[in-house]
């Protein structure tokens, strides 16, 4: 659960920030990388 919690914090911490304007695929990938999720499962490009 610890990794899921870490991912939840990284993914959602700013969802209610009035300045939140969504997130790009590159930003999403960076979040996954930062929490140690680096396999192809977490890539947007199926070729990766």
């Amino acid at each position, binding site marked *: *659960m*610890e990794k*899921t*919690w870490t*991912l*939840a*914090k990284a*993914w*959602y*911490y700013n*969802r*209610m920030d*009035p300045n*939140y*304007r*969504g997130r790009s695929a590159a930003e*999403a990938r960076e979040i*996954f990388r930062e929490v140690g999720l680096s396999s*192809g*499962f*977490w*890539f*947007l*490009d*199926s070729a990766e």
Partner: protein
Amino acid sequence: MEPISRESLDWSVRLFVYRHIVDHERPPTIAETADAIHLDPYEARLAFERLHERHALFLEPGSVSVRMAHPFSGVRTPFHVHTGGHSYWANCAWDALGIPAVLAADATIEATFSDDREAVRLSVKNQRVHGQEVLVRFALPFRRWYEDLILT
């Protein structure tokens, strides 16, 4: 008064939806949103639909009811989160943790996981998660999440 851009309007509508969920434990209707933001209901409906198209909200298929404002769910689910004197439904196990994350608050989570229907109780306190160890499985790879968000 300067006219607000469509982009700004959409993000204002989205923020209102989230704040309404936090305060009322359910998403607002089109009429409630229009009334709160001083919009024509038709304009509020268009904003909901645009937010759905850009994945900023997820509408119930075939309607303009908010089904998901991640991590919150607009419908009952097996993931119930209690925090700050309120109770919310989360879309999935990950989102159940997403609610204390987005609110930066302690929480208690009551969940029923799909494998054995066993009830699980977790808590988040002082930014740490406590409770029994469970495995969280993502059904689809990230690139396919938006093909079927309800399944994901």
